[in-house]
């Protein structure tokens, strides 16, 4: 390899000054951009006081909320008196009206609560013994408070007169004088199919099937199958019926909104396209109309129509219809302006009427593109219909938002999210399959 001579180097430098001696601002451009970004982030940090908000957030709750997505807690209270130790459950317990769970074992005046392997709570009227992973803690119950004996292990905490024992995911117990409040957590969704009020509750699949097929009528006015369906549909905690109806509303909103937008923007796009409608004013007016519909955001339309039609899917349909007429109209008219003119000329040259020129010279060229665009918008609207629902425009959005605002129904949120994801997945695939058939290649 030959090294370059110094004259050759000097020659290169004089020939390409912009490469070897770029202006200062160009040389330090990346640095300026990075500095600008840092400054902007610092400004936003101050503007939104991000630091304060994040520091003030209750991050320990994040874990609890995330846990509620896939699990449920059963609450129980153990009351200790010298005469008897009793267990009571809240009125609407997940375990039904007469709970007798196998993780609570009664023997005379002693109660043992099991929290999985190696974790247990032994309760009598004098003391509570908590065991976790080989360690155990004895807590004496005295009138002025719970008194832990010996050093506290990491999983227990003393606060004034009560001791909280933490068993990790399996649950926790608050030991308060004369009573122990237990929260025992299980993986899964409680009473997902039948709620505790249903006669089919807590029965195995086989039992339910035999009751439906050959059992005596539980309610004289309807068959057992109808009753079972009714119980599932109106499940008090999961509200399957309501959730599915709202989900259907969301789907209908996206479908009807996109369909109407396609039908309206199709003829308007012909008016807006320069090469098809040679009238300048007609072009400009239609195009600006599309711009207006598009730029007045979907949110604004949704709020307007919610106010006008009342909350519900009509508002959502109208909002999607208005916004997407604008967007689709723009896309369609741009497609029309880029068509191949030869086919139109051919049809025109054989003496076809103007309508026939469009029908046979233009539409066959653009129809696959138009349909694939419409499908793409349908798919994307299925996603956005969820969110405009939250402002009142119908569908599952509002239900989702309300479930989240209660802070306790995260399992319902998880259920709805799963349903939404399934719907989006199915519609994505339908739309992709149709589009790749239309355009003849993988879309």
């Amino acid at each position, binding site marked *: 390899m030959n090294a370059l001579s110094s004259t050759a180097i000097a020659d290169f430098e004089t020939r390409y000054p912009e490469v070897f001696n770029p202006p200062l601002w160009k040389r330090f451009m990346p640095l300026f951009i990075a500095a600008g970004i840092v400054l902007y982030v610092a400004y*936003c940090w101050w503007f939104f006081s991000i630091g304060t908000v994040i520091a003030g957030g209750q*991050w320990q*709750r994040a874990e609890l909320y995330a846990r509620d997505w896939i699990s449920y807690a059963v609450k129980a209270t153990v009351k200790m008196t010298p005469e008897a130790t009793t267990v009571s459950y809240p009125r609407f317990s997940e375990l039904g009206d007469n709970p007798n769970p196998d993780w609570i074992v009664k023997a005379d005046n002693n109660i043992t609560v099991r929290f999985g392997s190696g974790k247990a709570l032994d309760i009598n009227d004098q003391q509570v013994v908590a065991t976790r992973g080989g360690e155990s803690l004895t807590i004496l119950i005295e009138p002025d408070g719970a008194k832990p004996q010996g050093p506290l292990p990491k999983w227990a905490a003393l606060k004034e007169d009560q001791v909280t024992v933490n068993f990790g995911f399996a649950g926790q117990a608050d030991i308060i004088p004369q009573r122990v409040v237990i929260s025992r957590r299980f993986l899964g969704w409680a009473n997902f199919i039948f709620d505790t009020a249903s006669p089919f509750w807590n029965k195995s699949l086989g039992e339910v099937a035999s009751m439906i097929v050959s059992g005596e009528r539980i309610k004289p006015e309807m068959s057992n199958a109808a009753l079972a369906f009714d119980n599932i549909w109106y499940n008090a905690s999961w509200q399957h019926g309501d959730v599915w109806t709202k989900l259907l509303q969301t789907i209908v909103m996206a479908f009807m909104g996109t369909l109407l937008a396609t039908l309206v923007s199709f003829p308007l796009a012909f008016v807006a396209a320069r090469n098809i409608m040679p009238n300048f004013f007609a072009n400009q007016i239609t195009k600006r109309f599309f711009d207006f519909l598009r730029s007045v955001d979907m949110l604004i339309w949704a709020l307007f129509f919610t106010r006008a039609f009342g909350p519900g899917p009509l508002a959502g*349909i109208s909002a999607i219809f208005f916004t997407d007429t604008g967007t689709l109209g723009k896309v369609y008219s741009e497609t029309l302006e880029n068509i191949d003119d030869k086919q139109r000329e051919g049809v025109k040259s054989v003496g076809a009427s103007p309508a026939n020129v469009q029908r046979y010279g233009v539409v066959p060229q653009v129809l696959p593109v138009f349909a694939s665009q419409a499908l793409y918008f349908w798919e*994307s609207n299925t996603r956005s219909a969820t*969110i405009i629902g939250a402002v009142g425009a119908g569908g599952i959005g509002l239900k989702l*938002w309300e479930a989240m*605002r209660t802070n306790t129904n995260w399992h319902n949120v998880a259920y709805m999210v799963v349903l939404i994801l399934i719907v989006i997945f199915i519609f994505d695939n339908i739309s992709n399959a149709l589009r790749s058939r239309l355009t003849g290649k993988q879309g």
Partner: protein
Amino acid sequence: MSQAISAELSPDGIQIERHWQELATRRRAYSWLIGICLLVTVAGSLWFANESNAGKFFDRLPHFFDFAGDLVPRDGWEVWRALFDLPSPYFDGSLKYDYPEGRVYLFGGFYFPEYFYKMLETLNIAILSTLVGFIFGFFFCFLAAKNLVRNGLVRGIVRRFMEILRAFPEIVIAGFFAAILSLGPIPAMFAVGIHTIGALGKLFFEVVENADMKADEGLRAAGANWFERVGFGIVPQVMPNFMSYALLRLEINVRASTIIGAVGGGGIGEELRLSIGRGHQAKTLAIVLLLLVTIIAVDQFSAWLRRRLVGNQAFAFGGKQS
């Protein structure tokens, strides 16, 4: 007609003709069937939407025109007065015409109305979350590209991760963070930002996979390591496209943060929802005007910058949420 044709055709030709007729009939039948199915679906959908709506379409239509009529300003200056929050001659002691609440005083008696500040808030949410999405998407996309990472497991994990970020409804992320941080712009930022990471990451790695690998080959021949190959071989090629996609995303995010704002994320969206709900017509129009101008300005700016960066190639879709 068909009689005349068949008279001239050979026996083979007649068979072909008959076959073609059969195919055409079948095709027409399918078209009709699909058309009828579609019609039934549409009718059912409309009926269902109307039934489950709080107000029925034809009952509410007059109210719709009333509402639209109420919005018409009483004189040419009303909207402008509302926009700059100047004293209104209709002032009746309520907050309907003058909006002293939330005025931002810059110095002395000079102020700008609350919703300018809120608009700035929404814009900042959009810009910051696009920035966050860009930075994370930038780092993730190279790990998901087939031509840079041979390990299918790493690629698969990164791609699935981005898919989850993208598919998860924004509103759920916003709600989850609102439960931790309380309502406000920061949960909105989290929601929009997280979605943006997924959306941009996907577009970015597709760009990287289509990059010209000759530069990379040259660098590899000279003994460059992976980071040098990416940094000097790929990044300069893909950067204009990345920027163009990020700008498109910015347009989408301005709209998304307005919507999330209306749900409870603060910003102009919430202001608009409250204004419509309380029947402050002039203020509603002022906010709509402000939003319209901002959105058009952002779209135009982004289109101009994209045209400078990549020419006309990145104009396949108008600002559309994916």
